[in-house]
């Protein structure tokens, strides 16, 4: 399912319709998504009602499906999306801390992955990165992933197979810090990724596994880990070490009412106050207008439209209403505005990259130093 790995182009998920046994991502709203295995005999219980799954069969991925019935007489809906690595990262069951989109994007690009590459990974963890690695090296490469935790490794292995990635990924139980990467992988890796508490212990093994000019990457939350890793890399055949940090700054987008004509706005406010005094239940001040919602779909409109936004802002206001509000003459205007999300990840970890040294073809006879270097490179 994931990674377009199913056969050739015409059969890939985007053109296929939903069938029993498919993995879908049920998108309820921007902050509520679930992975779901389609089974025609079942009913999906979501926050917007009960959904008979048999109605999903035969629909294209990305379709909106409706609940059978729901409280309040309003019919709820959800979208059923084709799974991608990014969506999977948002819905997967956390067995460990996971890597998120920004780091994943950086790792895949800076490891210079492309179809055909062989990648080593440890530990597997929740498999968030593993999926993205598989996508980047498919269909001819391979990911060898190791986790020291028995249950985690076997769960991840099962998961990869059920996602149709069995051909691309091998997950094994192994304590890489203590036992190093298996010898059969020496000189085989184009890229190698470590997310371990003591990555410096694996520097020698990484040196042996990476091909010349292959790329090493280690993810560590603490700068002390980075320090020790860089020191260990300096003692091995690595060059061009780089340490970096990357984060996503996310923005909420909403349609906010702003005063654009101060005199008019004041006038409107005075008017409203007068009216309020004269009749007790009258008067809709400009501020109340903020909670307008779009017509018939109002039940889900507000959360739906507020991708990334959480407050009941006027994000669901349709352009027609926007225009109407302007014509009211309250001196206010709707403006589409972006705001950084209030809660943001401040730090995930440091990424340290380095390249495996090569053995150049030298015109002059090799010196003593180079013999040493040969001794430590792969047999």
């Amino acid at each position, binding site marked *: 399912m994931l990674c377009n*790995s199913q056969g*050739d*182009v*015409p059969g*890939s998920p*985007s053109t296929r319709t939903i069938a029993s046994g498919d993995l879908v991502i049920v*998108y309820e709203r921007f902050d509520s*998504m679930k992975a779901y295995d389609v089974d025609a005999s079942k009913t999906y219980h979501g926050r917007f009602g009960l959904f008979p799954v048999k109605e999903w069969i035969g629909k294209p*991925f*990305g379709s*909106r499906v409706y609940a059978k019935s729901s409280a309040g007489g309003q019919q709820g809906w959800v*979208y059923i999306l084709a799974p*991608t690595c*990014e*969506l999977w990262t948002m819905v997967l069951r956390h067995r460990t801390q996971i890597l998120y*989109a*920004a780091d994943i994007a*950086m790792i*895949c*690009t800076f490891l*210079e992955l492309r*179809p*055909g590459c062989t990648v080593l990974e440890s530990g597997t963890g929740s498999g968030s990165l593993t999926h993205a690695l598989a*996508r980047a090296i*498919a269909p001819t490469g391979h990911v060898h992933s190791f986790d020291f935790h028995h249950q985690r490794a076997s769960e991840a292995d099962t998961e990869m197979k059920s996602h149709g990635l069995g051909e691309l990924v091998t997950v094994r139980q192994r304590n890489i810090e203590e036992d190093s990467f298996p010898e059969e992988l020496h000189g085989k890796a184009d890229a190698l990724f470590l997310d371990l508490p003591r990555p410096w212990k694996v520097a020698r093994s990484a040196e042996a596994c990476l*091909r*010349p*000019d292959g790329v090493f990457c280690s993810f560590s939350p603490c*700068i002390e880990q*980075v*320090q020790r890793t860089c*020191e260990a890399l300096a003692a*091995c*055949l690595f*060059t*061009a*070490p780089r340490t*970096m*940090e*990357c984060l996503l700054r*996310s*923005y909420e*987008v909403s349609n906010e009412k702003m005063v654009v004509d101060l005199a008019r706005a004041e006038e409107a406010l005075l008017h409203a106050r007068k009216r309020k005094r004269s009749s007790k239940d009258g008067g809709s001040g400009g501020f109340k207008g903020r909670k307008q919602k*779009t017509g018939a779909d109002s039940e889900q409109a507000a959360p739906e*439209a507020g*991708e*990334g936004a959480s407050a009941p802002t006027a994000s669901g206001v*349709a*352009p*027609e209403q926007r225009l109407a509000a302007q014509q009211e003459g309250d001196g206010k205007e709707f403006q589409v505005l*972006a705001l950084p999300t209030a809660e943001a990840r401040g730090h995930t970890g*440091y990424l340290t990259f380095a*390249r495996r*040294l090569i*053995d*150049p*073809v030298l*015109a002059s006879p090799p*010196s003593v130093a180079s013999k040493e270097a040969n001794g430590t490179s*792969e047999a």
Partner: protein
Amino acid sequence: MTEVANGEGPSTSSSSVIIRDGDNVVMDANGYKSLVTIKKGSKAKVGKVHVNLDPIIGQHYGVQFELGQNGRDISVKRHKSDRAAAWAAWKTVTSERNNSELQDSMMNQGLTTEHIEAMKNANVGGEAIVNALLANSETFEAKTEFSQEKYLKKKTDKYTVRATVERPTARSLAETLFSWRPERIQYMRADTLAMLLTMANVGAHGRALVLDACGGLVTGAVAERMGGFGQVCSACTELKGPATEYVRYFNFPPEVKASIKSPPLSVLLAYRQQCMADAPTEESMAGATSQQKEDAGQNAKSAAGQVNGALTDTDMAPLESNSPVQPVHGASPTQQQQQPEGVLPLPQEQQQQQDSKSGMHLSELRYELGPELKQACSSGFSSCILASPNIDPSVLLRRVMPLLAPSASFAVFSNWMQPLADCMFKLQVSKEAVALQLNESWWREYQVLPGRTHPCMMTSGTGGYVLSGTKAAP
């Protein structure tokens, strides 16, 4: 040898890791990167001088060499892993010295420019010059170990050219172009490119639609990630010819080159329209969604024409035909490219172009879509990257949306946040897409040294914004 033994993939075969005659490479000379084409017997620019690079042909990518003082002889170097000793030494350093006694003076250095020039002419080598400079410095001994090291590095960089030959990849090309020719790639930083590839779900067996105003960097990056499996459709418009300039720098093997096609966007749209005409139910649905997307004023005007299911030419007309300044048919490609991209097709103006089927250009009509692209057009593209920041993303995405398969992932790049915010809001309202995110990638590098680890002093302020989402089925 090791790489031959493992034959797991076509693109990791030994040929792509060995520098060959005719290869394009990333040349890193003392940290300054540029793009160079290796041609046997001819010279290429390294740092400030032109040298013959024949000795590096046949070497492994990642090879390092030094230039002689005459700027001619290059000597391939064995990498030394001498940083281990440096780490050990620095760990014990506890400098008591400081710079309170240092006076800034021209007299601190005993060597004159004439001395140095003489040494250069005698071709004694950069190391010898640096050693002479140290020996003749009045102040070197009094400096702290840290500033001694800095001084040494500065002088070494000045008098020796140490170069590394990097294999061209999306990563190395993006970084090189960002530091070397950022305007050519629309100031798109490497981390932002990485985000685009990830958020658009680019991978083998996909069908990717790309609008690339970054000189082919994005097209190349997508093609690299797909490795010849699937289709890369780098659509061009009359505003922007095919984006190929930097594609060739990837040294792609033939099967990857063959996977890249550059049809005019209007031809794709016309074919898509034709497909939808064959499936009337789908057509009316698509008409309804595009209606939702329109702005209020326009919506009212055009609604009547769309309710009955007929897609107006407004929706399907080629992008170029809406451009106020129409390129002349016979115009040379350069003339067309000089036309500022800032001249934007505005939605309102589309109204005036209502019945302009003739707006399609002759050259576009001649483009023959291959079977793969026809297939992609009829069933929809699975990934889409729009990296053309001078075209309003709302306008562009509206045009491109019918070409995308349901549940397709898309990512839109812009240097500016506001157009993407507007576009995101429109999509939220029209519900044409879900899982929308507006992100900016934040990136900084660190200097990691014993006792001196800190973020690098120089960093780029912004690498651009990315709007990403998943297309909802109409």
